[in-house]
């Protein structure tokens, strides 16, 4: 089931981007992302916020990395200084805290992963068109079920 590996490819850069995160400072919108439905109350949510299909597909830098320690079934990330516009989030739950998306011996993802709008893929990551959402001026809230 090699197609599942595209999920890994898609999410691998979520972890990698911590060292190269572009920090787009722009006094303006704020975004609160609620992560719900978490089954294992340990580890961290690791993901990226992106503002283009290219960035979503890993071909451009993300706007912001996301990393939220998990100690309960619902945790949240607060992101300030965003320019209003279209964004998407992709993430995985690094349950074992090793910084990588876990796989079984056949390479299947075994840690939860999710996309904004709770978009789902079909043997691969959800598509940008399904995951994109608008951030408007002022305070915004977006919720993602992680499981």
């Amino acid at each position, binding site marked *: *089931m*090699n*197609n*599942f590996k595209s*999920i890994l490819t898609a999410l691998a850069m979520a972890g990698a981007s911590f060292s190269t995160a572009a920090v787009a400072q722009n006094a303006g919108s704020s975004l609160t992302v609620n992560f719900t439905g978490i089954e294992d109350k340990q580890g961290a949510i690791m993901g990226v916020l992106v503002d283009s299909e290219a960035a979503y597909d890993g071909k451009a830098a993300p706007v912001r990395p996301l990393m939220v320690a998990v100690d309960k079934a619902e945790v949240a990330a607060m992101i300030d200084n965003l320019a209003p516009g279209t964004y998407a989030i992709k993430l995985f739950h690094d349950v*074992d805290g090793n910084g990588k998306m*876990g*796989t*079984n*011996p*056949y390479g*299947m*993802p*075994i840690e939860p*992963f999710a996309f904004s709008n709770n978009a*789902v*893929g*079909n*043997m691969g990551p959800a598509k940008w068109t399904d995951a994109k959402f608008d951030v408007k001026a002022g305070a915004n809230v977006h919720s993602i079920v992680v499981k």
Partner: protein
Amino acid sequence: MTDFNRRQLLGTGFFAGAAIITPDMALAGASPAGWASAVADIEADIPEETMVLMSGKVPAGLNTTLYRNGPAKFRRGESAAGHWFDGDGLVRKFRVRDGKATLAARFVDTPKRRLETKLNAIVQPGFGTPSRAGAVINGPDDTNAANTSVMMSGGQLLALWEGGSPVIMDPETLETKGFKTFRRDLRQMPFLAHPRVEPDGTVWNLGGNGKGTFVWKLNPDGSLAQAQMVPLDRNSYFHDFTATAQHLIIVMQPWVQDGFKFPLSTAMSWKPELGTRVLVIDKNDLTKRRMFELPSFAFFHLADGWEEKDGTIRFDGCIEADPTFGQRAASALLRGEYIKAPTPMLTQFVLRPDGKAEMQMARIAAEFSTNDKRIAGQSRRFTTHVTGYRQTPFPHAIASWDWSKGRDDKFDFGDHHLVEEFLFVAKGEGERNGWLMGTTLNLKAGRTELHLLDARRVSEGPVATWQASVPLPLTFHGTIA
């Protein structure tokens, strides 16, 4: 003569014989609509009911439970599964206790079943079913039908599939408790529906086929003892494997996977020119391997194996001239069509210490081979099997083949019974000292029946028969608890 020629020659002679003794090709296309209930839909769980004793007498003190699993929901809205192997698993609990028999059945509550119930459509892909709009596939267990067998493990009843995890069920209420995770990093792993259980309860199983297969070893308490990938030199499809006391035996038929796509069966090709290979792996050192060559055949099921003093390995199985059944006929069943596939034939395999391998035909039609599990891995004389293939795609008889006398002790339930796998229930010391317990679908009565036969007197017919209030579609495999 080169190995290749020898293989070709053996193959030709072998199946020429098989064709002569099962001359039922004339029946191809004859499709009595009556068997449709074998693959009908069940809409709801079956609450526990007392079955009606139709004939015979319940042996005093008999206290046993037969769990069986099989697909029982194939169609939703305008859509249908594309293969018999892809329906939702319905686990049935037949219990005989205090002179009475009861039946209860519950569907395994899988992500696939939940999603398809919500959508009122069959969308998840499978062995012969394509992926359709609305499918959600984030891992193999999203497509898990949990419909092939069951096993007891550490006090849990596990519903087994083959491409994904076992599903935990409560053995009393049949309530689904979620996927079984033997170890955190072994989620979403394939686990065949044919674990081989040693007499002490140690379980060996395989998962997956391709460049390698995953070897599972469980302790008698159900915990994981060992988990390791072993390489294979052929992407052969296998639904079953077998074992002796000392070895795992992987039969690699020339039905091979060319890649990965849904439906799974469309990624598999029949390449008889490759012959069949048998890989023998030492249980104590999975790197110690031997390979044997056999003529081409297709198969689903094997029975337990054993080794003799000189190292000769024997096991038996039900083999077909080609995989037409799995490729096409089992799909056609859901459309009410009967495509005559090669009849499965009972065959003993002999792997000699000098590296030569042979097949010895019992020359009888047989499927769903089972044996006395108390002597798994030791030499044995009998193999229980279904037989009596004629007007319908399904067998009508149960039998016990005696390898030493070359004789089948058979009971034919008649044209209006479709016969499922029968399992051995031990009574006392000695192979076959006990009963055979199994089910049939009585087409005339429109009801499922539970039967108990004396394992040493199969041809005398059931010592007791109970009838349920409903017909249930046919099951694949089960376990005695």
